[in-house]
């Protein structure tokens, strides 16, 4: 039953035209929800959450750093899945997604590196160390840039998607390294605070704004992917009847 629903969704959203109508219905309410959630989390975290017993107020950059990093990592996993579907099944929507997911992810990876280094100076005493976590995060940014560049350098969009898709799939290995680097080797970066299983080592008064900021960032990412995918679909299907009708309707 669940499998069949997923399969139906896969086929429906696999159609560019259906995706276009679906996204026009979702975006009007997803966009405000994403913005409100993110702003709530950020204001709560940056202004109202208590300061930390060791780091005082400088820990507050966590409310930007962690949402950005987690968004960049999850985005890359989605990029890898799109790459797999694009390479193996040659599905058009997966190629569109491959193009839609990368830019925001690259921006988040950059934000994560910048905020991390600004946070490192007052707490660790350094902006940058070549430890496993930071180096692998820098590689993640390069993987994003590589996927974007590969799509731009090959003119034929279907061929570009296959090349970029393969790079996206291979890069998933790096996501695993980023995630577990703090556990496998000695790093300056501390271990994970939020744990999927077991108790998180953060006070609830700080945890809730953090979780809300993270959710807000992920939703904003989803909004950005939908908007980018819509534009890409319209461009790819520009010669089809339904896009032509859409344009004519927009002109009036």
């Amino acid at each position, binding site marked *: 039953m669940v499998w069949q629903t997923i399969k139906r969704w896969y086929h429906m959203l696999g159609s560019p035209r259906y995706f276009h109508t679906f996204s026009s219905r979702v975006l009007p309410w997803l966009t405000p929800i994403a913005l409100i959630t993110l702003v709530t989390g950020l204001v709560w975290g940056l202004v109202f959450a208590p300061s930390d017993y060791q780091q005082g107020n400088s820990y507050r950059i966590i409310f930007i750093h962690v949402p950005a990093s987690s968004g960049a990592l999850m985005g890359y996993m989605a990029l890898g899945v799109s790459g*797999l579907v694009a390479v193996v099944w040659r599905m058009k929507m997966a190629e569109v997604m491959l193009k839609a997911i990368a830019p925001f992810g690259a921006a988040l990876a950059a934000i994560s590196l910048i905020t991390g280094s600004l946070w490192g100076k007052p707490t660790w005493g350094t902006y940058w160390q070549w430890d496993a976590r930071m180096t692998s995060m820098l590689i993640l940014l390069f993987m994003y840039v590589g996927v974007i560049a590969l799509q731009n350098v090959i003119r034929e969009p279907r061929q570009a998607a296959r090349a970029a898709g393969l790079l996206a799939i291979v890069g998933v290995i790096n996501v695993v390294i980023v995630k577990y680097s703090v556990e496998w080797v000695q790093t300056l970066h501390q271990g994970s605070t939020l744990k999927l299983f077991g108790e998180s080592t953060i006070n609830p008064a700080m945890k809730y704004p953090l979780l809300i900021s993270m959710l807000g960032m992920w939703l904003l990412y989803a909004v950005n992917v939908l908007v980018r995918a819509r534009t890409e679909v319209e461009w790819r299907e520009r010669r089809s009847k339904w896009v032509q009708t859409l344009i004519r309707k927009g002109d009036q």
Partner: protein
Amino acid sequence: MNSVRKQRLILVLAVLVGLGIAVGLMFYALRQNINLFYTPQQVVAGEAPLGAQMRVGGLVVDGSVKRNEETLDVAFDITDGKGSFTVHYQGILPDLFREGQGIVANGTLISTSRFEAEEVLAKHDETYMPPEVQDALEKAGHPGAKKGGEYNE
């Protein structure tokens, strides 16, 4: 799934698994180089090279910090529970430096019991709480209160 797709899927997965194993082996082989620092246990056991530029990391031993009144010289012991040695440093320590805190020092190992640091970085743990909670934990004698610099083994 038709056979062409199946073939492509198998090929892609094979590439992924192959690369994964290759990266895993590389990680394993370079394990010591990827580690940011040597632990006190390794230093005491003589695994760390003497006289070479390197980093060591560990917890600052309680009550071991000795500051020179006239200069910026400071000496303290670091430990990981399995070994300890003294770090000598001249300069300003990061804000988070305190006894019980995890630190990473960059410098040279003179002997297995003496390290000359040029740079001291504070490692902080993944625990966040308001100061009032920390005070309450300390008053109650809760073991969580001393988590100031839990060592990441």
